[in-house]
C-alpha cells in the first residue's frame, strides 16, 4: 500500500508539469495583457509601463517566463496578484476555508438527505415514496441554483426577515467569541440550504440505483436466509456495498469543494474562491488566475488519488501491491 501511494505520487509529477505547460500556453495565447488595466490610466507614462513590465518579467521570452513561474511555484511562491496586490498563495489560503466550509457542510447535508432517501426509494421501488423522492431529485438537479437562491432571499431574507441576505459577517459589528461564529453560521444558512438541496438530488439517484443493484444480489438472499432483521439486511449488508460507488464520487468532488460554487458566492456575496476566481478573470489578473488554476489541478489529481486509495479501504477485493 505504501509503495503504491509513493508510486502514484511520483506519477503526479509529469502530469503536473504537463498541466503547467498547458496552462501557461493557454494564458499566453489569450487576448489581452496583464497590464491592460494601466493602459488607459492618464497618469502612467510609457516609461513607467516599461518599468512595470520589467518588474513582472513580462519583457522576457515566453519560455523564460515559464521557467521563472514554475521554479517559483516549486518553492511555494505562486506569484503576486496585480489587482489585489497580495501574494497569490496567501489569497488562496485566506479564501480557501470560507469556500471549504460552505462546500463541506452542504455536502454533508446533501448526503444526510440523499442516502436515507435513496435507500428507502430503492427498497420501496415504484411506491409513492419512490416517485416522490424521484420528483424531489429531479427538482434538485434541474432548478437553477441562482433562481433558488434568489427565491430563498426573497422568502427568508426579505419577507420573513429571518436571515441575513448576503455577506459572511454583519457589517461593522464587532462580536465576542461565540457570537462571531454564530454570525457567520447565520449568514451561511441560505447558501447551505441551496447547495445542500440541489446537491442531494444527484447523490440520491446514485444511492438509489446502486442500492437497487445490490438488493438483487445473491448475498442479500443469503442474509435473509440467516434470519437477520430486515434493517440489518438493508443497512449492514446492502448499504455498505452500495456506498462504494458513492464514495468514489466523493473523491472526485474534492476540487469542487474548493473551487466553490461560483453562482452561490456571487448571489450571496460570499467571500470565497469562486468569487475570487471570477474577479481575477474580470480584472485580467494573470498571476492570480494561473495560481488558482494550478491549485485546482493539484486538488483534482489528489482527489483522484484519494478516491483510488479509499477504494482499498471500503472494498476488500481491491489491494494495491
Amino acid at each position, binding site marked *: 500500500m505504501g509503495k503504491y501511494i509513493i508510486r502514484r505520487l511520483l506519477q503526479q509529477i509529469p502530469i503536473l508539469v504537463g498541466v503547467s505547460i498547458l496552462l501557461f500556453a493557454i494564458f499566453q495565447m489569450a487576448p489581452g495583457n496583464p497590464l491592460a488595466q494601466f493602459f488607459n490610466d492618464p497618469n502612467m507614462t510609457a516609461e513607467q509601463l516599461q518599468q512595470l513590465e520589467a518588474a513582472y518579467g513580462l519583457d522576457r521570452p515566453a519560455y523564460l517566463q515559464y521557467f521563472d513561474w514554475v521554479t517559483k511555484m516549486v518553492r511555494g511562491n505562486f506569484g503576486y496578484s496585480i489587482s489585489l496586490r497580495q501574494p497569490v498563495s496567501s489569497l488562496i489560503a485566506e479564501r480557501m476555508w470560507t469556500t471549504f466550509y460552505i462546500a463541506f457542510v452542504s455536502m454533508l447535508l446533501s448526503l444526510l438527505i440523499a442516502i436515507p432517501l435513496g435507500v428507502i426509494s430503492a427498497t420501496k421501488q*415504484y411506491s409513492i415514496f419512490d416517485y416522490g423522492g424521484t420528483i424531489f431529485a429531479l427538482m434538485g438537479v434541474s432548478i437553477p441554483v441562482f433562481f433558488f437562491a434568489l427565491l430563498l432571499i426573497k422568502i427568508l431574507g426579505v419577507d420573513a426577515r429571518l436571515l441575513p441576505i448576503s455577506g459572511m459577517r454583519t457589517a461593522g459589528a464587532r462580536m465576542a467569541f461565540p457570537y462571531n461564529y454564530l454570525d457567520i453560521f447565520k449568514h451561511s444558512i441560505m447558501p447551505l440550504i441551496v447547495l445542500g438541496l440541489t446537491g442531494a438530488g444527484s447523490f440520491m439517484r446514485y444511492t438509489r440505483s446502486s442500492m437497487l443493484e445490490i438488493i438483487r*444480489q*445473491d*448475498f442479500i*438472499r*443469503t*442474509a*435473509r*436466509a*440467516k*434470519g*437477520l*432483521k430486515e434493517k*440489518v439486511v438493508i443497512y449492514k*449488508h446492502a448499504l*455498505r*456495498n452500495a456506498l462504494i460507488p458513492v464514495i468514489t464520487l466523493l473523491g472526485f468532488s474534492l476540487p469542487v469543494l474548493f473551487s466553490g460554487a461560483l453562482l452561490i458566492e456571487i448571489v450571496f456575496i460570499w467571500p470565497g474562491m469562486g468569487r475570487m476566481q471570477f474577479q481575477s478573470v474580470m480584472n485580467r489578473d494573470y498571476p492570480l488566475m494561473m495560481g488558482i488554476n494550478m491549485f485546482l489541478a493539484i486538488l483534482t489529481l489528489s482527489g483522484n488519488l484519494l478516491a483510488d486509495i479509499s477504494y482499498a479501504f*471500503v*472494498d*476488500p*477485493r481491491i489491494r494495491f501491491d
Partner: protein
Amino acid sequence: MSEIITEKKELIVVENLKKYFPIKSGLFKKTVKYVRAVENISFTIKEGETLGIVGESGCGKSTTGRTLLRLLEKTEGEVYFDGKPVFDLPKDELRKLRTDMQMVFQDPYSSLNPRMTVGEIVGEALSEHGIARGQENVEMVKDIIEKCGLAPYHIRRYPHEFSGGQRQRIGIARALALKPKFVVCDEPVSALDVSIQSQVLNLLMDLQQEMGLTYLFISHDLSVVKHISDRIGVMYLGSMVELAPKDELYDNPLHPYTQALLSAIPLPDPRNRRKRIILKGDIPSPSNPPSGCRFHTRCPYVMDQCKVEVPEFREAKPEHFVSCHLIK
C-alpha cells in the same frame, strides 16, 4: 432402509404449493400474466432423510426450495415445518425458525457478502440470534469451518481469497453454524469442477450423519442426485411428475418424462449403448403452460385424455407416486 425411514416423523410437509410470478406490462404496470413457476406440488420429507429434486433448467426446482423456506412468498398452498405452518408465522417467529431451516446456495461466488470476512459471514447469524457472542462466537465459527474442511485461521480472510470449492464450504459452514434441522441444498455443486463436486457431496453426507440433518437436495445432475438422495422427485414445468425411493425410480421409472430423462445419463462404457428416448419439441413456456397434462405436447404416448384432464399425483405402488394417465 425404507422400513426404518417410515417410522420416523415427517419434518417437512408440503401441500399443494403454488408459486406464480406476475408479469407486468403496459402503461400502468398491470399484471397481464403469471409465470407459473411452481404448480400444485405436494410431498413430505422425513427426519434424517434426503429428498432429491431433479429437473431441467427453469422447471421450478429452485423456486420450490426458496418458497419452501419462505424466502419467497407463496401463491397458494401450505408448508409445515415440524408441524408449524411456515406461511402463517409472523415475521418475528419466522426469523427464529430460520435457525432450524437453512439453505446452501447455488453460486458460491455471488452468495457471500464480499465486504465481510469468513468469520463475520459464518458467525453473524449466531450473534444476531443471540446464540453466541464474542470469543464464544469465534470458537464456534472456527469449529464449524474446520468441520467443513477449512482452517481456523481462514476466519480473517475475505471470500474472494478462496477457490470455488472452498467458497462452497464457507456457504455450507454458514448454513450449518446455526445447527439447523433442515437444509435446502440448491444445486450446491453445479458451479464446481467435477473433481471438487464429489468432495463437497461427501462433506454434505458426512455432516448429515454427524449432525442428523434432513436435506432437500436440488440438482439437474442425475448422477449427483442418485449419489446423495434417499428418495427422488422429478419435476417438469413446475409440477412434480414422479416421486419414488431412489432405486425404485432408477430401476422402474413409470412416467414417460422420467424414462426419457434417465435414458440421457451417459454410460461410462462407450461400447455399452443405451437406447435413448429423444423427446420432440421444446419445453413450453411456464407463463403459458399446456392444458391437461403439462407433458402432453412432448409425450410419446400422448392420448386424447391427456390434453384435457390434469392427471392426479397418486401412489401407483407403495411409496411410488406418479402423475400420468397411463398408470392405472
